[in-house]
C-alpha cells in the first residue's frame, strides 16, 4: 500500500526559496567570474589578442634542430648537418626585377633553367611572398651576396641545415640516410613526434637511432605584418640538437673493403668477436645517399633500382646466400661434441658418396677423391665426402639445432633495421613446407647447399662465436651516443647470447687449429694468403653453387659465389670476418684476399699488397676450390 505522506506546502516552498536563493548567489558568483574573464580578455588583453587575430598573423614556425652527427670509431665524420644557402626574392620589394637579375648574374651563377623556374614560381606566388631564385649557393656565392645585400633590395639569403654524407656511399647500408618525411609518415600514428621536422631517417642507424639523432624541435611564434614578412618574434622555444653517434665501424677499413670489392656485388662483415662491435659492414656495390636527402630525381633512382648488380640491396643484412663450404666448421663443431666422432678418425674419400641402398652419387669437388681424410684434412682441403658422411651420421635435426645455436635462422639483433632471418631447415620448417624430407637433402645440406640460407652478418657472427670461446655476441654498429652539450656518453652495452653447448673439452681448440690449416697447410684452400703473415689466421673458404638466383638479386651470370670466413690472430682472435663475392668463382681467389687486407689493416695498421704477379697467382690458385 502506498502511503500518502503529509506534506507541509508552506514549509516546502520556503525550503525551495532558500535553495533557489543560494543557487542564485552561486550563479551570481559564476556570472561575475565569467564577465570578469570576458572583460579581462576583451579589455585588458584586447590589444594582445587583436594582434594575434588580425592578419592570421601568429604562426608557430618550427626551428629545425641540428641532427646528431654520425662518426666512425676514430671520429671521422660520416654524416653531419651542413648549412646550405638559398637565395629568395620578395617581388614587392624589388623596384626593377630585370636590373636586379642583371646585378645578380655578376655575383652568382644563374643559368637559363634557374631563371625559367624562377619565373614560373613568380607567377604562382603572391607578390609579398618570397620566391626562391636559387638553392645550394656555394659559400663564396653566399658571401658575395651577403656583402652586397644592401645594394640588392628585395633579396634575402636563407641558411638552412641539410644532411650531408661527406664520404658519399661509404658504409651507406650501415649509416642509411635521411629523406623528406612522406605524407604517410606525417599522418601516421607517430605524427605528433615528427611535427615540424622535414626529414626522417630511412634505413641504417639513421633510422634505428632516429630518436637519439633527431633532437627536439624548437618553435618561434612569429608575428607577421600584412605583407607576410616577419616583424617580431613573440616567443621562442629553442631546439635541442640531436645526439652524436660514434660507430664501431672503422671508416678506413670500410673503404679498403669497398675498394677491394670494386663495386662487384658482394658483402663483407667484420666483427670484434669479444664485444660484437661491427668493424666493417660492406654491401657492394655502394651508392651515394646524398641525392636521396632532398628527393632523388626519378631518372637517377630508376638507374639505381634497375641496375642488375642491385646497389640498393643491403646485402650484409638482407642478402640470403647458401653458405657453401664455409658452413663445414660449424657442422664439425656439432660433431665434435658427440662421443662417436673423433677428429683423428680417418675415412676414405673415393671422390663420391652414395647413401646406403641408393645408387645416386654425390660427388666431391675433387673428382678422383682425396684418399685418407681426417677432420684436419677435411677442413684444410674442404673434403665434401667427409661432410656428406658426417651429415648422414648426425641427421638434419642435430645439424639444424647446432646451426641455430650459432645464430643461423634467427636475427642477430644488430641495431639496424630490416635484418633477415635466413633459413635453417629445422624440423618445424620442414613440417611447415609439407614436403617430404629426403636423406639426400640432409647430405647436401651437409656441405652448405640445399635450402640453407644465411646472411653475411650471421656468418660473421657465427665465426665470432667460435673466436670468442663459444660465446656469441650481439653485433653492435653503434659504440656510444654522445650528448653534444654535456658530452655525456652513453655506451651501448655488449650483449652475450647463451654460450654454445660444449661437451668435449678441447673441441673448439681442435677445430680452430684445423681451421688454421686452411691458410697454413700445404694443401690449404686459402694458402694463397698465407705468405708473410705475421699472425696466425683460422679460416674456411667456400664456393656456393647457385642453381637459382634469389629474386632480389638480378644475377648477370650464374657463376658460383665466393665465400671466405676467417678469424685472427690465433689463439686470441680480435677480428672475425665473413666475405662474400657474388658470381666470383672460387672463394679462395676472390674473397680471401679481401679478408686478408682487412685483417692486416686492423691488426697491423697497413695493407700488404701482393708482391707477386697477379696473373701468376691466379694460375697458381686456379686448381684449388672452396
Amino acid at each position, binding site marked *: 500500500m502506498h502511503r500518502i505522506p503529509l506534506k507541509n506546502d508552506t514549509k516546502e516552498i520556503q525550503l*525551495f526559496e532558500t535553495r533557489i536563493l543560494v543557487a542564485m548567489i552561486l550563479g551570481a558568483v559564476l556570472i561575475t567570474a565569467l564577465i570578469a574573464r*570576458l572583460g579581462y580578455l576583451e579589455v585588458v588583453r584586447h590589444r594582445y589578442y587583436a594582434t594575434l587575430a588580425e592578419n592570421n598573423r601568429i604562426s608557430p614556425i618550427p626551428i629545425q634542430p641540428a641532427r646528431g652527427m654520425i662518426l666512425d670509431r676514430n671520429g671521422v665524420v660520416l654524416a653531419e648537418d651542413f648549412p646550405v644557402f638559398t637565395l629568395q626574392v620578395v617581388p614587392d620589394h624589388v623596384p626593377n626585377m630585370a636590373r636586379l637579375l642583371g646585378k645578380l648574374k655578376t655575383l652568382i651563377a644563374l643559368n637559363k633553367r634557374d631563371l625559367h623556374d624562377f619565373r614560373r614560381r613568380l607567377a604562382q606566388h603572391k607578390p609579398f611572398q618570397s620566391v626562391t631564385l636559387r638553392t645550394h649557393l656555394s659559400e663564396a656565392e653566399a658571401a658575395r651576396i651577403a656583402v652586397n645585400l644592401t645594394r640588392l633590395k628585395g633579396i634575402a639569403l636563407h641558411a638552412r641545415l641539410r644532411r650531408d654524407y661527406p664520404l658519399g656511399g661509404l658504409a651507406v647500408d650501415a649509416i642509411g640516410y635521411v629523406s623528406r618525411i612522406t605524407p604517410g609518415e606525417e599522418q601516421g600514428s607517430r605524427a605528433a613526434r615528427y611535427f615540424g621536422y622535414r626529414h626522417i631517417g630511412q634505413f641504417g642507424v639513421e633510422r634505428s637511432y632516429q630518436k637519439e639523432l633527431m633532437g627536439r624541435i624548437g618553435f618561434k611564434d612569429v608575428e607577421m605584418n600584412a605583407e607576410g614578412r616577419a616583424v617580431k618574434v613573440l616567443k621562442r622555444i629553442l631546439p635541442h640538437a640531436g645526439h652524436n653517434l660514434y660507430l664501431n665501424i672503422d671508416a678506413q677499413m670500410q673503404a679498403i673493403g669497398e675498394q677491394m670489392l670494386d663495386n662487384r656485388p658482394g658483402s663483407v662483415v667484420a666483427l670484434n668477436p669479444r664485444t660484437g662491435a661491427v668493424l666493417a659492414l660492406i654491401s657492394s656495390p655502394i651508392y651515394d645517399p646524398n641525392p636521396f636527402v632532398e628527393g632523388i630525381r626519378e631518372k637517377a633512382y630508376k638507374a639505381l633500382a634497375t641496375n642488375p648488380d642491385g646497389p640498393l640491396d643491403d646485402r650484409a643484412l638482407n642478402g640470403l646466400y647458401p653458405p657453401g663450404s664455409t658452413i663445414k666448421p660449424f657442422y664439425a663443431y656439432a660433431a665434435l661434441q658427440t662421443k662417436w666422432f673423433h677428429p683423428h678418425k680417418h675415412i676414405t674419400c673415393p671422390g663420391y658418396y652414395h647413401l646406403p641402398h641408393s645408387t645416386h652419387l654425390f660427388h666431391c669437388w675433387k673428382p678422383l677423391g682425396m684418399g685418407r681424410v681426417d677432420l684436419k684434412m677435411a677442413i684444410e682441403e674442404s673434403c665434401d665426402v667427409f661432410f656428406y658422411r658426417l651429415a648422414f651420421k648426425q641427421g638434419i635435426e642435430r645439424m639444424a639445432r647446432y646451426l641455430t645455436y650459432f645464430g643461423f635462422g634467427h636475427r642477430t639483433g644488430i641495431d639496424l633495421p630490416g635484418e633477415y632471418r635466413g633459413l635453417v631447415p629445422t624440423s618445424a620448417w620442414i613440417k611447415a613446407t609439407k614436403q617430404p624430407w629426403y636423406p639426400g637433402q640432409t647430405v647436401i645440406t651437409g656441405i652448405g647447399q640445399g635450402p640453407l640460407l644465411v646472411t653475411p652478418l650471421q656468418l660473421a657472427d657465427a665465426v665470432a662465436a667460435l673466436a670468442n670461446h663459444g660465446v656469441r655476441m650481439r653485433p653492435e654498429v653503434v659504440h656510444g651516443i654522445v650528448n653534444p652539450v654535456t658530452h655525456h656518453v652513453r655506451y651501448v652495452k655488449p650483449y652475450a647470447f647463451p654460450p654454445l653447448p660444449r661437451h668435449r673439452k678441447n673441441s673448439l681448440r681442435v677445430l680452430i687449429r684445423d681451421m688454421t690449416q686452411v691458410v697454413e697447410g700445404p694443401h690449404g684452400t686459402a694458402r694463397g694468403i698465407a705468405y708473410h703473415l705475421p699472425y696466425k689466421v683460422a679460416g674456411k673458404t667456400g664456393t656456393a653453387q647457385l642453381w637459382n638466383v634469389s629474386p632480389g638479386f638480378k644475377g648477370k651470370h650464374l657463376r658460383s659465389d665466393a665465400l671466405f670466413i676467417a678469424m685472427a690472430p690465433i689463439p686470441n682472435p680480435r677480428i672475425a670476418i665473413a666475405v662474400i663475392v657474388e658470381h666470383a668463382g672460387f672463394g679462395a681467389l676472390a674473397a680471401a684476399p679481401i679478408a686478408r687486407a682487412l685483417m692486416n689493416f686492423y691488426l697491423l695498421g697497413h695493407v700488404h699488397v701482393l708482391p707477386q704477379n697477379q696473373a701468376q697467382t691466379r694460375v697458381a690458385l686456379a686448381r684449388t676450390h672452396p
Partner: protein
Amino acid sequence: MTIFERWHLDKPLMTALLILAAVSLVVLYSASGDKLGFALSDAVRLAIGFGVMVGVAQISPDTYRRWSVPLFAAGVLGLIGVLAVGVVRFGARRWIALGPMSIQPSEFMKLSVPMMLAWFFSRYSLPPRIWHIAGATLLLLVPVLLIAKEPDLGTALIVLLSGIIVLFLAGMSWQTILGVALLGLAAAPILWAHMHHYQRQRIFILFHPEADPLGAGYHAIQAMIAVGSGGIFGQGWLHSSQAHLHFLPDSTTDFAFAVFCQEFGLFGNIALLGLYLFIVYRGLRIAFAAQDSYSRLLAGSLSTLFFFDVFINMGMVAGILPVVGVPLPLLSYGGTSLIVVMAGLGVLMSIHGHRRLVN
C-alpha cells in the same frame, strides 16, 4: 484570453527566446562564412525546435509526472541499446541508428533525469530523508554511468549535474552536501586515473594552452584569440576573422559564442548574457509560481540546468573551463541538443500555462 494563454505559453519567455533565435541566425550566418543556406538550415532547425516547444507546452504537468517513470525507463533502455547495438562515430558509441536518422539517448536523459528525480522527491515530504537521497542517487547513477561508458564524459557530467541540481533544490541537507563534496574530492584522483588520454589533455590544456598550440591547445587558443580580439565594441557583424579565415574550429556549433564575442565585443556579451539570465529568471519565476512540488522542482532544476548549459559553454570559450562539447542553447547550430533544450523550455511553459488560477 490572449493567444499566449490559449497556447499555454509565457509571453516574456517566448519573446526572449525569439530574440535569441534571431541572434542565432545573425551569428551563424557570419560564423558559417556568410552562407545563406546555412542560416536557412538553422532557421528550419529553430522552427522545428519552437514547434517541439509549443507542442510540449500543450501537455499538462500532471501528464509529465505520470509519464516520468516510463520515460526514464525508456531512456535507460535506450542507453543500454546504445552500448549493445550503437553506431560508432568519432571513436565513441553514442548513437542509435533509426532508419535514416540517428538519435542520442544520452541527450534525452538531460530532460528525463530531472523529471524522474522530481517525481521521486514529490512523493515524499521535503526535505528528503537520507535514504531518499540515497535512492535518488542510485537512480541518477544508472544513466550517468551508462553515458560515461559510451564514452561521453561531457554529457555524463551534465546529466549528473542535472540530477545534483534536483537533489539540491529538493532540500538535501547541508551536512550531506558537504560530505558528498568531500567524497567527490577524494574520488577525483581515481576518476583522473580512469580518464582517457584526450580527456586529461583537455584539462591540462586549460591551464597551459600554449604548451601545444597546434594540437590539444588549438581550440582553446583560437577561441581566446577570437574573444580577446573582440574588444569592448566588437569588430562588427561579418568581421570575425577567426571564423572567416577558418582559424576557429566548430565556429557554428560549440564555439559560436567566440564568433559572437569577436563581432559584438564586451557590450554584446553582456547583452547576450542578460538575455540568457532573463530566461533563467523567468524560469525561476515559473518555478516559484508552480502549484505542486513536482512542477516546482522540475521548473527550478530545468532553469538552473539551462543556466549551467550557458555558463559551461561560455566558460569554455572564455578559457575558464575545459573544452567539453556542450553547445550554447539556441545560439549554436545543433540537432538533438537544440530539441532537448526546447523541450525543456516547453515543459517550463506547460508548468506556467497549466496553472490553476486561484484568485
